[in-house]
């Protein structure tokens, strides 16, 4: 069982920054996220788009903000359970919680911080006969690329017309034996460099493009051996080991909705006068997932909420223990990995 002080649900900017503020208070964090990589919406929906309202950054790409946050929290050695969804919660007599994911991974924590944003991102699935059969037990349908190595030397069919379809086609063209990209239109919608790169790889015959087309069926008795593709009314069969439909993701509040938390307008009600705690003692909700009078769903508000949450958890775990807020400039940052960051000392020296 994974043990930690604060179990954070959601690896978006708010959840990641909470690790830093917790670390300053000597609290350890572990993060669960349904997506295979940290960053939440920023990494999944708009990594290449700029954000203009992060204080101190006139402009920062969403993907860069995630990279920076990961760098900022590195010394506090957060644990990650990625690609799994927090499913059930149990409160033990000693006040700690056990959270179990959909894959059975158990986490024990002294406090829970739900930083789930819009909710769990669930893949939009194409409506195809037998898809439920093939998406189980590695039978060939995947909605995420969790471990690219799995596709080494394999034949892959990717469907979709957006950034993730383009980017994974590019990436896997160097790993897989073959990559076929199927899209309903001839036009793709993504970052210009991704579209151009796919064009280049198509010309070099490293990606096979099938458009305007749609995957309409599967072949294979135990697992996928080929997919049927309809192109302009004609059918063709493409042999493959994996079919990866990338049609975007829809956020759902998910299993958290059944944890007995007070929900209003698809968000979790918290006490914003104090510490962003929910109606269940020891469970907090921070960032876009919470609601209170005057709530604004902004990254900068999430950072503030994460900071106050950590102070509250400190007091909860260490009742009566004295602590005063310190400035990192003055006290430096001592990592759990033994590193120390500190301001350079001023010199006291006469000037002749």
């Amino acid at each position, binding site marked *: 069982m994974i043990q930690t002080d604060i179990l954070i649900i959601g690896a978006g900017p708010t959840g990641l920054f909470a690790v830093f503020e917790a670390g300053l208070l000597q609290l350890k964090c572990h993060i669960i996220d349904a997506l295979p990589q940290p960053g939440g919406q920023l990494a999944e*929906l708009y990594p290449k788009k700029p954000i203009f309202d992060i204080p101190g950054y006139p402009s920062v790409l969403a993907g860069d903000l995630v990279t920076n946050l990961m760098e900022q929290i590195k010394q506090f050695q957060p644990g990650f359970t990625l690609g799994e969804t927090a499913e059930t919660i149990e409160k033990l007599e000693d006040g700690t919680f056990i959270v179990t994911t959909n894959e059975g991974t158990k986490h024990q924590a002294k406090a829970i911080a739900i930083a789930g944003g819009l909710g769990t991102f669930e893949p939009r699935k194409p409506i195809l006969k037998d898809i439920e059969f093939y998406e189980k037990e590695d039978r060939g349908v995947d909605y995420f690329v969790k471990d690219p190595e799995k596709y080494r030397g394999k034949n892959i069919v990717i469907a979709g017309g957006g950034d993730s379809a383009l980017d994974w086609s590019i990436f896997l063209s160097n790993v897989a034996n073959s990559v076929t990209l199927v899209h309903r239109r001839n036009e793709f919608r993504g970052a210009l460099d991704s579209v151009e790169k796919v064009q280049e790889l198509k010309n070099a015959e490293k990606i096979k493009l099938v458009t305007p087309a749609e995957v309409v069926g599967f072949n294979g008795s135990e697992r996928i051996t080929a997919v049927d593709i309809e192109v302009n009314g004609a059918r063709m069969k493409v042999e493959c080991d994996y079919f990866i439909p990338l049609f975007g993701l829809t956020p759902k509040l998910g299993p958290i909705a059944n944890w007995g938390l007070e929900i209003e307008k*698809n968000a979790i009600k918290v006490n914003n006068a104090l510490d962003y705690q929910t109606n269940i003692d020891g469970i907090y909700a921070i960032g876009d997932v919470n609601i209170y009078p005057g709530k604004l769903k902004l990254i900068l508000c999430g950072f503030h909420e994460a900071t106050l949450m950590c102070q509250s958890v400190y007091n909860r775990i260490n009742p009566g223990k004295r602590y005063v807020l310190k400035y990192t400039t003055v006290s430096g940052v001592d990592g759990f990995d033994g590193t120390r960051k500190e301001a350079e000392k001023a010199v006291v020296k006469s000037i002749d």
Partner: protein
Amino acid sequence: MPQDITIFITDRNGVKHEVLAPTDMNMNIMELIRSYELAEEGTVGVCGGMAMCASCQCYVLNDVISLERNPDEEAMLWEAYHVKDNSRLGCQIHITEDLEGLELEIAPEQ
């Protein structure tokens, strides 16, 4: 002083609302729907207005605006559900004085 305009919006339960929309706040139809809470929070404008989720899809019911979609909007609507010829994404309709009297219906949830 810019004038507010009147827009008619039918919600997902079939109820028609007459709402006043400011023309000087750089708002779009998705934001107008959210500001009047005409659809449940979390079910409209999920992506924040980047034409990336189609949760603000509307059907245009009169000819106050053109049905022409911008390329981002068009690409999103290729992949969305419940799309009709008169579908537009609310987040891509910028509110200006030209929209006076526009009638819309919010499409079902994605």
